C-alpha cells in the first residue's frame, strides 16, 4: 500500500493503555483500503439523514430528555494537549471527536458510515466526485455558522497545517469546493473507498474558519458539548452546548476523570466519585461489580486485535511451517480465559467482528501434535525464540500461557519486558525481535499490517497487496468485500501472526446509567447519549 501510510498505525494504546505512554506512540486514524462506502442508510442520492448523534440507527441509545444532570466518567490516559491537529495520542480524539468536533459522516454501531453534519452525500459513478449536502442552521460554539466554506477550509487545512504523520488520509483529495453554502464537492485524484472512512476520523473534523487560533486550549466545534475546563492531571469538564443543532444531550455536565491507577478508578466507581469506568483494565477485578442492582457490565466489541506478532523477515520464523506450528501449538481459548477472563472474541484472521468483511475462520485449530510434526519437518527440533513484551496488562497476562504452551511442543521462549519507547525502537523501528504481543487498535488496519513488507511484521505477499489496492478502488461494497475476504483468507493461510483474540470493549457503570455506546468502533468516546437515572 502507500508508503506514507506506514505511519498511520497504532499499536495498542487506546485500549492497551495500562502504563503505556501516549506520546511516542501514535494513534493516527484511518488506514488505507477500507470498503465501507455509502451504506444502505446513506445510499447515494438519498437525503434521509440519520439525525443527530443521539439517535443512532440501531436504536440502542435513544437520548433521555435534557436535564440538569451531571456525571463523571473514568479514563486511563489523559490528553497531553487538546490539539489533535498537532499532537498524536488517542486520548485527545477520545475526548473531543463527536463531542466537541463533528465530522461530515460517522460510523454507527454496525460499522456503517452514516451522515452527521452532511444530511446526505452522493458519489459519482467513477467514484471520484463526492457531493455532500450539508445541514442548514448548524453553528460553531463561537457563534459563527457552519457552511461549506468551513468544510473546504477544514479539509484544506489538513494538507497545509496538520502534523505530517496524520494527514496522509487527505492525500487523495484533488480539490474541495463550496458549490453553495450547503453543498460541498470533493474530487479525488483516484477512487478511494478508504477516504470516506478516514473522514469519520479526526482528519474529518470540521473547524471554524475563525476558531483555530488556540486549539490546544480552546477547541471550537459544532458538537453537543463544549469544553468548560481542563484541570490538568485530573479532569476535563464538558458542558452541554446550548446552541447545538441536534437533539440536546440529556446530561448537562460530563466530567472526564483521569486515573493512572486502575484500582483507583475502580474505587472511584465504588465510592460514587465516577459513574462509568470507560475501559476495564483488570477484567479479573470485575467481581466487585457483580451486584447487578448496583452495577452493569457492558461487554461490546472494539476494533482491537491482540496479536502474537512474529518476525516474518529472517530466521526460523521466515519458514511458513514454523509459523504454522506456532499457530497450531496455541490453545487460544485457554489463553483468552486465563489472560482476559474470557472477555473478547476468538478470531482466525485479521479484523474485528464489526468490520464489514469479518470472516469467522479457524485455519489452525489447537493441535500440538501437528505443531511438533511441522517443526520436525522444518528441521527445528530445538528452537529458541525471544518474546519482547510492551508494558501493557494483556501482554503480561497472556505471555506466561503462550510460553508454556509453546514449551509443550518443544519451543523455548525467553521473554523480556521493555518500556514502550524501547518497544517502538527495537520491535517497530529496528525489527529486532522474534515474537511480541500487542493489541492493534486501529479500525480496518489489515492493509497497514499486511500490505506493507516494510512494516514491523515483515509480511510480504504481492497477491495480498494487489487485492488491497484493488479493493480500495472498487466501486461497490460487494466487490470490495470480496477482494478483502480473499486477501484475509490468504493472510490467514500464511500465518504471519497468531490472532490471540479480538479485544472487548469492556465498560462498568452504575446500574441506572443509560445510553453508553456498546461497541467501540470509532476512536471517539461519545458522551451525547449518556445519562443517569
Amino acid at each position, binding site marked *: 500500500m502507500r508508503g506514507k501510510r*506506514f*505511519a498511520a*498505525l*497504532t*499499536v495498542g494504546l487506546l485500549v492497551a493503555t495500562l*502504563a*503505556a*505512554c*501516549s*506520546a*511516542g*506512540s*501514535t494513534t*493516527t486514524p484511518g488506514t488505507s483500503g477500507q470498503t465501507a462506502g455509502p451504506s444502505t442508510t446513506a445510499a447515494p442520492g438519498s437525503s434521509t439523514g440519520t439525525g443527530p448523534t443521539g439517535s443512532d440507527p440501531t436504536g440502542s441509545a435513544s437520548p433521555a430528555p435534557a436535564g440538569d444532570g451531571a456525571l463523571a466518567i473514568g479514563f486511563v490516559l*489523559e490528553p*497531553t*494537549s487538546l*490539539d489533535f491537529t*498537532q*499532537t*498524536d495520542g488517542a486520548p485527545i480524539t477520545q475526548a473531543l471527536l463527536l463531542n466537541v468536533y463533528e465530522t461530515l459522516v460517522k460510523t454507527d454501531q454496525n460499522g456503517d458510515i452514516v451522515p452527521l453534519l452532511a444530511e446526505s452525500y452522493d458519489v459519482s459513478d467513477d467514484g471520484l466526485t463526492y457531493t455532500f449536502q450539508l445541514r442548514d442552521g448548524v453553528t460553531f460554539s463561537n457563534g459563527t455558522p457552519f457552511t461549506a466554506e468551513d468544510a473546504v477550509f477544514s479539509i484544506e487545512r489538513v494538507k497545509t497545517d496538520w502534523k*505530517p*504523520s496524520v494527514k496522509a488520509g487527505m492525500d487523495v483529495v484533488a480539490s474541495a469546493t463550496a458549490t453553495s453554502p450547503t453543498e460541498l464537492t470533493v474530487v479525488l485524484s483516484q477512487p478511494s473507498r478508504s477516504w470516506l472512512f478516514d473522514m469519520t476520523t479526526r482528519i474529518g473534523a470540521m473547524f471554524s474558519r475563525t476558531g483555530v487560533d488556540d486549539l*490546544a486550549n480552546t477547541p471550537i466545534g459544532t458538537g453537543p458539548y463544549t469544553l468548560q475546563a481542563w*484541570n*490538568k*492531571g*485530573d479532569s476535563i469538564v464538558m458542558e452541554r452546548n446550548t446552541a447545538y443543532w441536534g437533539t440536546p444531550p440529556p446530561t448537562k455536565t460530563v466530567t472526564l*476523570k*483521569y*486515573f*493512572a*491507577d486502575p*484500582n*483507583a478508578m475502580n*474505587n*472511584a466507581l*465504588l*465510592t*460514587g*466519585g465516577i459513574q462509568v469506568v470507560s475501559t476495564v483494565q483488570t477484567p479479573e477485578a470485575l467481581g466487585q461489580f457483580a451486584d447487578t442492582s448496583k452495577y452493569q457490565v457492558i461487554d461490546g466489541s472494539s476494533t482491537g486485535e491482540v496479536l502474537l506478532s512474529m518476525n516474518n523477515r529472517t530466521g526460523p520464523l521466515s519458514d511458513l511451517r514454523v509459523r504454522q506450528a506456532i499457530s497450531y501449538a496455541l490453545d487460544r481459548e485457554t489463553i483468552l480465559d486465563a489472560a482476559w477472563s474470557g472477555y473478547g472474541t476468538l478470531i482466525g484472521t485479521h479484523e474485528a467482528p464489526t468490520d464489514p468483511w469479518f470472516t469467522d475462520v479457524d485455519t489452525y485449530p489447537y493441535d500440538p501434535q501437528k505443531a511438533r510434526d511441522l517443526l520436525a519437518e522444518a528441521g527445528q527440533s530445538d528452537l529458541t525464540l525471544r518474546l519482547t513484551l510492551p508494558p501493557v496488562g494483556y501482554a503480561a497476562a497472556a505471555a506466561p500461557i503462550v510460553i508454556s504452551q509453546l514449551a509443550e511442543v518443544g519451543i523455548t521462549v525467553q521473554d523480556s519486558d521493555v518500556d*514502550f*519507547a524501547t518497544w*517502538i*525502537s527495537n520491535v*517497530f*523501528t529496528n525489527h529486532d525481535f522474534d515474537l511480541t504481543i500487542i493489541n492493534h487498535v486501529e479500525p480496518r488496519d489489515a492493509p497497514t499490517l499486511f500490505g506493507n513488507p516494510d512494516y514491523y511484521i515483515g509480511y510480504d505477499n504481492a497477491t495480498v497487496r494487489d487485492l488491497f489496492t484493488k479493493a480500495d478502488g472498487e466501486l461497490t461494497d460487494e466487490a470490495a468485500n470480496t477482494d478483502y475476504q480473499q486477501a484475509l483468507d490468504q493472510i490467514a493461510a500464511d500465518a504471519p501472526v497468531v490472532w490471540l483474540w479480538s479485544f472487548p470493549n469492556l465498560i462498568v457503570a452504575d446500574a441506572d446509567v443509560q445510553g453508553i455506546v456498546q461497541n467501540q468502533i470509532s476512536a471517539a468516546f461519545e458522551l451525547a447519549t449518556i445519562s443517569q437515572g
Partner: protein
Amino acid sequence: MVWSLLRRALIFVASVLVASLLVFWVLDNGCEPARNALGVSGTPESVAALCSDMGLDRPLVVQYVDWLGGAVRGDFGVSYVSNAPIGPTLFDQLTVTLWLVAGSMVVALLIAVPLGMLSALRNGRPLGYLLSGISQIGVAVPAFLAAILLVLVFAVRLGWLPANGYVVPAADPVDFLRHMVLPWISLGVVQGAVLARYVRSAVLDELGQDYLRTARSKGLTPFRALRRHGLRNASIPVLTVVGVNLVTVLVGAVIIERIFTVPGIGKGLADAAERRDLLTVQAIVVTLVLVALLISFLVDVAYALIDPRLRTRAGA
C-alpha cells in the same frame, strides 16, 4: 550569625547547581526526545531535522547554560509531548504537593509529640511499652499499604470520604479537606510513628539531665519540669529528623498521589516519565532537589535560631 548564614546560603546555591548539572547530564539522551515526538512515523532524516530544531545537537554545556538561564526565571521550556510550557503546570503541581506534605507533617507531629512524650514519661511502665509497640507497628507499615487500607475502610466500606481526587482549596475548602484527609493520614501516620520514636528518645535524654532533676527536686511534676526546661532542648534532634523526613514524605507523596489521583508533582513526574517527556522530568527532578536542599538549609537556619550554642559555635 550573618556570616554563618551566608556560608550556608552559598553551599545551598552550589549544591543546587551541582545537582541540576548532574540531572541534566544523566537525563541527556541525545536526539531521543525528537525520536519520541515523531513516534512510529519518524525517519532518520526527520528525526535529525527535529533534533536540530530542538537544539539537541548542541554541546551539552551550551544546552545546560541555556536551560539554566530559563529555569532561573521560572521558564523550563516547552514540553516536547504536549507543546505547552512546563513552568506553569509545574507550579500548580508543586502547590498541590506542598499542601499534601504540609498537611501530613502536621498529622505526623500531632501523633508524634504526644505519643513520644507520653511513652518517655511512662518509660518502663505498661503504657510506655504499649505506646512503643504502637509506634513500632506504625514504622513497619509502608505508606502505600496504609493508603490502600484506609481507602478500603473509610471510602469503600464506610463511604465517609472520597476515595480519590482533588479539589482546589479556594474553590471549596470543605471539599478540599474531605479529599485530603485520607492522603494526609496515610503519609502522616507512618511519619508520626517514626518521629514518635525520636521524640521519645530525645525526651528520655532530657529527663536524665541534671537540671531536670534539680527542677523536679523543687517539686515540679516530670511533665511540668519537662515543659519548662527540657522541651526546647529536646526539639533540636527532633527538628533534624523532621527535616530529613520531610524529604522522605516528599518521596512518599509520589506514590500517595498516584493512589489518590492527586495532581501533584509526584503524579506529574510519573506521568512525564511514562510519556518520556524528558524536559518535564528534568524540570520536576530539579525542583524536587531544590525543595529538598531548601528544607535542609532551613533546618540549618532553624537550629541556629533555636540553640544559641550552635549559633556561636557556627559563627566562631
